[in-house]
């Protein structure tokens, strides 16, 4: 918490360079909220975060669910594949994607050889590429959240539902989803907060074309050395993350009660 408080203090300094300046000013916040460029970046960042979280949920849920239901031996290697991107350095993952998506990369070479496109295309420096890479990075968080909550759902409930002639879709909708909601919300929240504060990926994959809040902060501090302004932006990010977390917790609390009743 101390760093966050420090960030708050420096965001009110009136200087524009390193720790120059003193006193108290809201100048940096006013600049952020009055300039439409920043508000559009802020908006884009939130939209990206939402898209990434939704995709993670959509493709991560089946994986997390199946992991929880697999016998331990089969689970082992799959768990290692899931945990690997979490443990591996982020730069290495992003580098891998640079080679996949680059002009002479894997994707272009496959597409050209299949005759789908005639000449290599530029996939990097575009929003879809950034979203794809963010999804791959944060997917494990969603998978593991879903897995941990599904492990606690007794398979007997699913057998009971199928004995009552519910097909899988009905069982899924009426039994699994309500019971797994807390895990889904935790995963969603994690992925969202991580995505809106990402800066390595937008910078390396998106270049200057896909500004996100995190990469703006990084540039403000490490290239322009405008620390007070960077601090103001970081604090906005911090508050946004906290706000979303609080909202998710409130949602989880209310959803949990309803989900419990559904299951009974």
């Amino acid at each position, binding site marked *: 918490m101390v*760093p*966050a408080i*420090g*960030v708050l203090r420096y965001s009110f300094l009136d200087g524009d360079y390193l*720790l120059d300046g003193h006193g108290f000013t809201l100048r940096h916040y006013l600049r952020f909220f009055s300039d439409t460029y920043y508000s559009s970046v802020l908006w884009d960042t939130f939209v990206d975060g939402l898209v990434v979280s939704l995709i993670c949920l959509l*493709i991560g849920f*089946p*994986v997390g669910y*199946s992991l929880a239901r697999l016998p331990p031996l089969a689970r*082992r290697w*799959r*768990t*290692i*594949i899931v*945990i*690997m*991107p979490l*443990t*591996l*350095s*982020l*730069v*290495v993952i992003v*580098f*891998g*994607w*640079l*080679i*996949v998506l680059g002009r*002479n*990369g*894997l994707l272009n*070479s496959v597409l050209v050889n299949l005759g789908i496109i005639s000449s290599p295309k530029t996939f990097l420096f575009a929003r879809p590429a950034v979203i794809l890479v963010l999804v*791959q990075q944060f*997917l*494990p968080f969603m*998978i*593991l959240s879903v*897995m*941990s909550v599904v492990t606690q759902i007794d398979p007997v409930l699913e057998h009971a539902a*199928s004995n009552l002639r519910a*097909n*899988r*879709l009905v069982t*899924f909708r009426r039994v699994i989803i309500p019971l797994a909601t807390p895990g889904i919300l935790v995963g969603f929240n994690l992925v969202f*907060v*991580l995505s*809106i*504060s990402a*800066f*390595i990926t937008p910078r*390396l994959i998106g270049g200057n074309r896909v500004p996100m809040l*995190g990469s703006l902060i*990084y540039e403000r*501090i*490490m290239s322009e050395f405008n620390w007070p302004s960077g*601090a103001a932006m*970081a604090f906005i990010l*911090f508050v946004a993350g*906290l706000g979303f977390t609080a909202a998710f917790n409130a949602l989880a609390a209310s959803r949990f009660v309803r989900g419990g009743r559904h299951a009974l």
Partner: protein
Amino acid sequence: MRYDFTDYVLIVAGAVTRVAVYALLALPAALVVVLSFTSGETMDFPPAGFSMQWYQKAFESEPFMSALWTSTYVAVIVAIAALVIGFAAAFAINRFDFPGKGLLQALAFSPLIVPAVVLGIGLLYLFAWMNLIQTMFPLFAGHLVLAIPYVVRTVLASLTLHNRVLEEAAMNLRASPLRVVRRITLPLILPGLLSAAIFAFVTSFGNVTVSVFLTYGGNVTLPVQLFTYLDHSYNPLVAAVSSIMIFVTLAVILTIERLIGAETLS
């Protein structure tokens, strides 16, 4: 179980998604390793041929090797410090009631409250204010903040699972509390402790999001070095260096898997 049409659709869709997801998760790292063995000068796919030349160049490259050394050095110190602090915290949470216990537990279980950017910047300002920015302290502090929660969680899980009866037996035999901890508790939870330390090591070793704000000319870690390098260009040399990181990480995961099972990491 009886299957109807929607069941089959769901089964097929589920299987396709699972295969796609596992492929997606493994793809970047696998490709880096494959291309690190290229004999060509570029990162084009498919690779030109097989050679170890880029590994040789990586080991001869002064910036990367000194960064690798810095990373290893920082990670070892962070692992030891995180283990000591984390064990103390986990032991206290597990055995005693004290004011602020709930807060400590909440802190240990939610390391992601503060985004990495905010943590990095905050520590940067803090240490700049203390005039310590040209030292290793910011890096140690940043990595410790990241690593300690994992250590606390892993050690806490081991402490909760292990059987207290043996400790009680030792105490009945008039062993001092310190002796009990040293001769009974620590050996029993050794796998948990080792995993925690190794995981703290790899957290520090691979971190870039916090480190990037806290390094200066003399103490650049390997991931930060890779990041600044990738900002300008990339070539098979980076692939070789990255592959070294992949091998280290994979070794770590497999070791932890052997010790306590990979699921504990989540």
